[in-house]
């Protein structure tokens, strides 16, 4: 019971973090058809900017400045770099952002070194939110989840309740039509790209103070986020929310379970045989928790090739 509740809480917070990053990716893809490979690098950039700023001006300034800086970087990428390769198709846009991801990672290494930096939450936030089964549950995990929820409420309100939001959604469906109606679509695109990047930057700034901040954090989270969008269906915000939570929960439960295929064979009395074979059969779930998302993706591809909520291919 204790395990189930703790794992659920951890899974949901991790899932919400995934959603913070995958939402921007999904929004940008839905509108422009650009799969931004550097999106997870924006997440990493957010963490490092927040680290650099917070070491001088304090934690909260860092949290505030990071999304702004990352958002501006995103806008610059959309404004100055993407148009140059647009004529060569979406594959080249993907490749360009892929190259940018490599450059960002190497720049981070250049300025901050190969090893994790000491980016920490302030002492004031380092307390237990509540006691559960005799151990304290860190408040900061709840804080990450809360930031994600607030961010989405705001984003959702912006998209559904404001004029700009309606233009954004119109541009997502029919960009030429929206442009013909007199909206400045290039500016809208630039802002959406910037907002998506800023969301990733904010996620990095918030999560970097809890999880390790190192030059691999971008690609490590990036692959999981890509799995999220494949499982959820690219372009579907709802799909990426469901997939984020699903993968968050699967991962956090897997960490604590020592199930193995050999264990399943025990039920039919073949456990000893399976153990003698070894290899994959005796691998414990907990040790392969990093593999779970990828296995889940393959299963979803078999059952629903378009993703859980996706229709477009």
């Amino acid at each position, binding site marked *: 019971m204790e395990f189930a509740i703790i794992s659920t809480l951890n899974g949901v917070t991790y899932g919400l973090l995934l959603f913070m990053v995958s939402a921007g990716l999904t929004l940008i*893809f839905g509108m422009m058809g650009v*799969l931004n490979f550097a999106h997870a690098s924006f997440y990493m950039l957010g963490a490092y900017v927040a680290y650099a700023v917070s070491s001088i001006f304090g934690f909260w300034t860092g949290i505030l400045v990071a999304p702004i800086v990352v958002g501006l970087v995103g806008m610059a990428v959309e404004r100055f*770099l993407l148009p*140059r*390769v647009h004529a*060569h198709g*979406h*594959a*080249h846009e*993907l*490749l*360009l952002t*892929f*190259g*940018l991801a*490599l*450059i960002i990672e*190497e*720049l981070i*290494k*250049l*300025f*901050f*070194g190969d090893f994790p930096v000491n980016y920490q939450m302030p002492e004031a936030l380092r307390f237990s939110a509540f006691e559960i089964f005799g151990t304290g549950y860190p408040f900061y995990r709840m804080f990450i989840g809360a930031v994600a929820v607030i961010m989405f409420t705001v984003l959702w309100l912006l998209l559904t309740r404001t004029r700009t939001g309606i233009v954004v959604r119109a541009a997502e469906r029919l960009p030429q039509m929206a442009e013909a109606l007199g909206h400045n679509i290039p500016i809208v695109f630039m802002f959406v790209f910037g907002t998506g990047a800023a969301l990733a930057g904010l996620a990095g700034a918030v999560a970097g103070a809890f999880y390790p901040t190192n030059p691999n954090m971008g*690609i490590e989270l990036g*692959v999981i986020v*890509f*799995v999220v*969008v*494949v499982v959820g269906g*690219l372009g579907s915000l709802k799909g990426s929310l469901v997939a984020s939570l699903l993968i968050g929960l699967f991962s956090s439960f897997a960490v604590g379970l020592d199930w193995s295929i050999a264990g399943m064979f025990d039920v039919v009395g073949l456990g000893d045989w399976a153990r003698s074979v*070894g*290899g*994959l059969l005796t*691998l414990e779930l907990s*040790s*392969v928790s*990093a*593999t779970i*998302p*990828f*296995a889940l*993706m*393959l299963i979803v*591809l*078999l059952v629903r*090739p378009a993703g859980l909520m996706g229709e477009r*291919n």
Partner: protein
Amino acid sequence: MTSIQKILLALLLVLLIAVPPFLGLGWQNALINVLISSLFALAFNLLNGQAGLLSFGHAAYFGVGAFAALHLMIAVEDGLFFPTPLLPLAGGLAGLVVGVVAGYFSTMRSGVYFALVTLAIAELFHSLAPHLEGTFGGEAGVSSMRMPWMGLGFGTIIEVYYLTLGWVVLCGLALWAYTRTPFGRLTLALRDNEQRVKFLGYNAHYAKVIVFAVSAMMTGVAGALLAISNETANYSLFSGSVSAQVVLQTFVGGSTVFFGPVIGATVFTLFSFLISDLTRSWLFYQGLIFVLVMLYAPTGIGGVIGHHIRNRRQLDLAKIGGPYLVALGGGILIAAGTVFLTESAEVLFGQDYAMARDGASGGFPAYDLFGLSWSPLNPVTWLVPLVLLCGGVFILIRARRVIDRLWARKDEATTADMTVGAGGKE
């Protein structure tokens, strides 16, 4: 292939056979790596350039090929009879089998989805391999020894080099032949218009799985060659950086030209051999080169060369050669400025410099770069790269204007030729 191309290829082959015995061990080893990455890039580009399927996870098949070869080598050590020169067959077979399964999944989707699924499959291997002691040897990996066969010891690097050369040439030719087969033509059709292929009676998914599997098989051979050369491999072969390398090399070399990827693989591998001791920022420069190629020459080095060869009759080399040299000079200035800034950053933000600052009680002591001493607080230190960059950009822009004009004149000349019929040369 035209006869000129055939002669050039034959010449290259003669050089590759005749020169290496006279080179040092370091160069022999570097050439082995050039050959292996060339085959890897060619195999990758079968999928990418011919079928239009961009894979971000080819490390999986490279790694699988390497481990398969190593396991066979261990079996040979234990007394199994198997000719050492045929070891890459194990890599090819393993790549083929894994490629069929992975291809089945990944080609269910196309476009960016395909790229993401291939990436995720490679990560699956990368995350699983350290936990599978028996197959991938855990974190330490698997090691073995090349065993002698029929009087060939395979103890020296030059023997391994010739083995590698033989296999790479063989597989390269096979990949070339592939483009001439009916299925090779169908592969191009798939890239152009998958939907129409379906309506002409082909099972497009089935066809894509075959292309994927052939590409994975050749990648597996390349991985096996690496394993034979290194006699060891660990799970890091599955890492994203291996997949990224082949993407970079292929596109910088040129994915639209059959031998383009070989150019990219050669340039990058030789560069990393020559300068990876000098700088830790080699990966940064690689990324920068890749992005610049994507922005300004999306067809890559091979594509640009091909463009010039196609237009060689209409181009006045004597006239355009000068501006090209000027442009090259501008490019070198920009490169020098960029390298100066990057290397300075590497020093100033490095741990050694932090210690030096502690020694100088918080000041900014001078640092050594390119045999000179630079002070971070002296404006001259930053004026140098600034002048290099600005000067380079200025020269490049001016030269480009002239080059564009010459190319435009060439186009005019051709149209004039066509209208007048027998137009003179300018």
